[in-house]
């Protein structure tokens, strides 16, 4: 009986780590698409820098998952050899980069979220998880210091930049709610003090975001109807394309060292 409990606990934790790794790896992929495409050279550097941070996070989550699974699989097997239905990232991470306004508003939403979420996760009973969260939290604080002024600037810059921010907001609003949803297995991890109750963060996230946007005369309304499904492998149409690009070499030349 005891073994059975441990077994589910382990399975839940692995699942959780892979989900967090998926969030990071997919988001990092999107950000890296800005390389040589930014409005300033400085932004090329900044955006790839954030991409690099998220790649680093993905590796830490996956490596830990691989260690727990202990079946010879590596971080790369997890990233490169699973299908679109097996990926469990939350949908907001996979949306295409669109324009700079969309990218920065998503970045801002993510930054506020991760600052709160990782702060809470750094208190996890699982020491390895807590260590990853602590490291990542520092990065997110830094990211937020950069995304906040950009949102303010774009919202108050020109009519066009403001319109672009508003359009981005209208699209992103449908996807932020999923950040605060949990499957049963995640709830179980919360009960064990390993994961963080996402619903408890939601209020604070909404408070910060609406207060900040209000400074630029933008009203933030969390729409009632939220798109979700990422954690169950129900994605947008975009993910398949992303994966076919990302996994191309590993799929074409199976089982090789690079």
């Amino acid at each position: 009986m005891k073994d059975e409990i441990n077994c589910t606990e382990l399975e839940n934790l692995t699942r959780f780590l892979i989900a967090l790794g998926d969030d990071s790896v997919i988001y990092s992929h999107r950000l890296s698409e800005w390389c040589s495409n930014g409005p300033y050279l400085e932004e090329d550097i900044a955006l790839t820098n954030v991409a690099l941070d998220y790649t680093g996070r993905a590796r830490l989550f996956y490596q830990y998952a691989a260690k727990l699974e202990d079946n010879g699989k590596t971080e790369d097997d997890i990233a490169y050899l699973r299908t679109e239905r097996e990926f469990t990232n939350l949908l907001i991470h996979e949306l295409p980069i669109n324009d700079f306004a969309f990218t920065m508003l998503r970045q801002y939403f993510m930054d506020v979220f991760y600052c709160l979420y990782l702060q809470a996760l750094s208190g996890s009973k699982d020491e390895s998880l807590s260590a990853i969260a602590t490291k990542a939290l520092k990065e997110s604080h830094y990211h937020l210091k950069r995304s906040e002024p950009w949102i303010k600037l774009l919202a108050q810059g020109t009519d066009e930049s403001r319109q672009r921010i508003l359009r981005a907001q209208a699209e992103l609003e449908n996807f932020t709610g999923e950040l605060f949803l949990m499957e049963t297995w995640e709830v179980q991890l919360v009960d064990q003090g390993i994961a963080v109750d996402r619903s408890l963060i939601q209020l604070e996230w909404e408070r910060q975001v609406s207060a900040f946007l209000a400074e630029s005369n933008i009203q933030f309304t969390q729409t009632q109807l939220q798109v979700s499904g990422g954690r169950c492998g129900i994605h947008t149409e975009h993910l398949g394309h992303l994966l076919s690009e990302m996994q191309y070499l590993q799929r074409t030349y199976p089982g090789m060292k690079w």
Partner: protein
Amino acid sequence: MQTVEPLLQEAEFDQKILDEQKIEPRDWMPEAYRKNLIRQMSQHAHSEVIGMQPEGNWITRAPTLRRKAVLLAKIQDEAGHGLYLYSATETLGCTRSELIEALQTGKAKYASIFNYPALTWADVGATGWLVDGAAIVNQIALQRTSYGPYARAMVRICKEESFHQRQGYEIMFALAKGSPQQKQMAQDAMNRIWWPSLMMFGPHDADSAHSSQSMKWKIKRQSNDFLRQKFIDQTIPQIKVLGLDMPDPEIRWNKKRGHYDHGEINWDEFYQVINGQGPCNHQRIKHHKRAHDEGEWVREAVRNYREKQNRRENSTMKK
């Protein structure tokens, strides 16, 4: 007075060059020296920036997470080099937007190597190894260049370049020691990138338009052919370690010279690519322009926002 002073200034400048002192932004310098530097430094800056494209072409397809992280970091470094070199060029009295315009209108050049396509993953390895390798040979020589900001930029940049070269070689090594397909991939990439890397050192000394004056001013410290030979000599043993076939059948150790002999570079191709007819010339500039144009609304928003801020500050100061 007016006729004597320029002469004095010029003599002082010449003496500084002779004494191996650095020329600094506020120092008087001949107009031709300034122009020559702007040409060379901006070309260098543009090369860093345009070079992001062929390598960036592989970020989203890197084969492992570690390789992806390393490649991201490398390209980020190159962007940083570009930025650093643009600032160094700006000390000569031109703005970054002028420099970018010169790039986009074809008035300014960038390293021709980036007008070749990065076709396979092995190209990322071969580029790091050979292109950054050739760049290092050039840039080590430039650490002693006479213009202070340029020399200092080179010192800083060289450190990162050698890291890039090691990473590139590491990719090649993994491929060369991997499956037959991977080895073939490595061989193919090296064969293609080898010649354009040799071209990076420019035409033969006898045919180099800017060389002699640049050497006199100590902007350039060593000749094209000397540096090219140095690069070849250091790279051949590395090819042997990889166990790949030589990219040039005429490569042979010459005991008498103490150097490797090699086949002649296809100079027609060199001039063709330099004059805009390479495989990717149009693509690279089009890409740069597209990204720049798409970012215009952002830059406009920045300008507008700053103006509003300034106005607000001014009006509160008046109160």
